[in-house]
């Protein structure tokens, strides 16, 4: 202790005697400020990863004038403390590891492995050709079949993917956007073949095209027809598949592309409100589809900011749905979310350290009140994860759920001066960003002008500069680099034979099916694309006739056209 510091302490102790200003342990904020002024601070940024300044101490003074109703209680409007009244006391989050590679058979085996190891839901990762609506035997698919996910080009592939997995018992999430309506129909038709009616299906299709244009870039059609397909799915699901989530409004990819926490929050919720407006504009009753809208957020490195982000998201959504869109059903106000740890924070250097990063992020997701969680594997900056790496990341969730004690009480950080202040700040930031988007004319004009894309790219560049300048420490990358030189870790390899196998299976399919039925169902789909009737029943007919992904895409594209991105950097 320095002499100066000792003197201040002595002075404060003298001041805080009973004769003076109260009992010795009741120092006031001013006393702390004075003491703090005498102490040095480390040379560190003291900002969140998103660049938000963080004060050294939060006190009651930070909460002055705040309305306790904004915090409320779990299960009640505005849901800051959680979408459900009892949260993990009733049911733990769903442990849902995103997986897919090679052929449907290979992925089916991985799913069975995961279910046997205690995973409680499935999540399908498709390969790039599938994500873009190309068949495995299309020339654009060369070299990419089954590499980054599973190749699904037809109903037959989808049936093989879930062979022996009862679709009325396991909830399945599918990450597909541009051609989502087509893969959804393959899924419904595959369930039919298992004897499972659509009304029994539980699960989610990502189907969030706005964030594709903004961040992830796996699109097919231009925004207006793409939005029409989404509303068709809202309408069809509310009637035929009431337990299925026809969309997962996703901040994950926006954040991974470089956005800050506040941008992720704001862009995602504004996209969500855009879908709500589109549904209402179609003439749907908001309460007929809003309860099935689900969300997906990133959980990045900054522990408290990420927790606050999830809490703020629930409050903003609840308020918007009730106050702005007039939803009456509390289910429409309730934001339910999936979360995934931040892939972008994983490092190739000393990859084992990623296990620790993922564990902290997973804890933030649980403290933020997520409904399901994917934890990344340590080797994902190098390749698709090995079975061992996936098992460790699943075990990370199990340790969190069963050993750490964080599931014993609901929203344990509520009332924290810091967390509540951060939650309020993030909400305020999001509302300011909403105003900017409104000034651009909404989400679609913002995309067409490249506004979202530029905002995200600028944030990414700022973060890169901070790391390169050494302003932000990344362990193993710009500090503590001993041991980072060699990257020797076992990685999963996709055999090039997968592509040949899949191409051969497509040829067999084309030879086997009834070509006239394929042709007539595709023609009917093109006609429906033109007329404006709901496309889901038409695509289901195409799927049952074994038309392929690209054929169905093409039948729609002939009316809708395709999307061209604004190119800039």
């Amino acid at each position, binding site marked *: 202790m320095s002499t100066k510091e000792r003197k201040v302490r002595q002075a404060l102790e003298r001041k805080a005697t009973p004769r003076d200003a109260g009992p010795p342990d009741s120092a006031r904020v001013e006393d702390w400020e004075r003491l703090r002024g005498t102490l040095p601070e480390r040379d560190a940024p003291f900002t969140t990863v998103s660049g938000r300044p963080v004060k050294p101490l939060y006190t009651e003074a930070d909460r002055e004038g705040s309305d306790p109703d904004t915090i409320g209680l779990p299960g009640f409007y505005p849901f800051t403390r959680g979408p459900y009244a009892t949260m993990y006391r009733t049911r733990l989050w769903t442990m849902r590891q995103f997986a897919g590679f090679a052929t449907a058979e290979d992925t089916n085996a991985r799913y069975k492995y995961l279910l046997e190891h205690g995973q409680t839901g499935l999540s399908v990762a498709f390969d*790039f*050709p599938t*994500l*873009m609506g*190309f068949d495995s035997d299309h020339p*654009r*698919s*060369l*070299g*990419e079949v089954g*590499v*980054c996910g599973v190749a699904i080009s037809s109903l037959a592939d989808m049936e093989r993917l879930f062979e022996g997995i009862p679709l009325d018992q396991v909830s399945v999430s599918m990450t597909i956007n541009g051609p989502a309506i087509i893969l959804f129909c393959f899924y419904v038709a595959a369930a039919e073949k298992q004897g499972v009616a659509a009304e029994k299906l539980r699960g989610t299709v990502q189907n969030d095209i706005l964030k*594709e244009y903004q961040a*992830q*870039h*796996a699109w097919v059609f231009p925004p207006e027809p793409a939005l029409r397909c989404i509303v068709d799915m809202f309408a069809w699901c509310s009637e035929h598949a009431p337990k299925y989530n026809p969309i997962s409004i996703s901040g994950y990819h926006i954040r*991974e*592309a*470089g956005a800050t926490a506040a941008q992720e929050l704001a862009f995602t919720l504004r996209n969500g409100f855009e879908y709500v407006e589109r549904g209402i504009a179609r003439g749907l009753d908001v309460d007929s589809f809003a309860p099935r809208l689900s969300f997906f957020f990133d959980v990045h490195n900054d522990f408290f900011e990420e927790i606050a982000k999830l809490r703020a998201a629930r409050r903003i959504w609840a308020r918007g749905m009730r106050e702005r869109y007039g939803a009456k059903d509390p289910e429409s106000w309730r934001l339910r979310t999936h979360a995934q740890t931040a892939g*972008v924070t*994983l*490092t*190739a*250097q000393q990859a084992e350290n990623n296990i620790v990063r993922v564990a902290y992020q997973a804890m933030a997701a649980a403290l933020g009140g997520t409904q399901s969680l994917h934890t990344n594997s340590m080797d994902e*900056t*190098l*390749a*698709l994860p090995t079975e061992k790496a996936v098992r460790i990341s699943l075990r990370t969730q199990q340790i969190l759920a069963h050993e750490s004690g964080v599931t014993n009480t609901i929203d344990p950080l509520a009332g924290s001066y810091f967390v509540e202040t951060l939650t309020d700040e993030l909400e305020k930031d999001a509302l300011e960003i909403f105003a900017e988007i409104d000034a651009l004319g909404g989400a679609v004009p913002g995309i067409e002008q490249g506004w979202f894309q530029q905002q995200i*790219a600028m944030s*990414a*560049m700022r973060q*890169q500069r901070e*790391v*390169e300048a050494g302003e932000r420490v*990344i362990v193993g*990358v*710009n500090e503590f680099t001993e041991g980072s030189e*060699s*990257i*020797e870790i076992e*990685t999963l390899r*996709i055999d090039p034979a997968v592509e040949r196998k899949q191409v051969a299976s497509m040829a067999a399919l084309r030879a086997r099916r009834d070509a006239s039925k394929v042709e007539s169902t595709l023609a009917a789909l093109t006609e429906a694309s033109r007329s404006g009737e709901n496309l889901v029943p038409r695509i289901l007919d195409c799927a049952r006739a074994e038309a392929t992904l690209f054929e169905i895409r093409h039948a729609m594209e002939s009316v809708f056209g395709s999307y061209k*991105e604004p*190119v*800039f*950097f």
Partner: protein
Amino acid sequence: MTNASALTTRKIRVLVAKPGLDGHDRGAKVIASAFRDAGFEVIYTGLHQTPEMIVAAAVQEDVDVVAMSVLSGAHMTLFPRVQELLADAGADHVLLTGGGIIPEEDVRALETRGIGRLFGPGTPTTTAIAYIREWFAASPKAS
């Protein structure tokens, strides 16, 4: 040896390219901005380019370097294909380099085939910039 920057009498022209169906362009955009800030002339292809489209752009823009970003796992197909097409187009003086999610073993295999350095996640942009400057200084086109 004279230092590299003194030899450089014109700007280095770089095509930053995203081949294949992979939409992850955070890295491509960050590196394109960093190259521009370093004084290179940068052309960015945009997403979802075929090897043919990339080589056509490289020839048309008369670039010195093609820098490809591949996060899709298709690097063993895409890098050799672009290399082959560059040679067919009489542009084998162009440096083909890049980065992405590429296992170390594949990096070595591609480098053995004459493809330039490939940079993994966490590489400072300054490392890639220095590499291109050094290569350019040593290449006959530098003057």
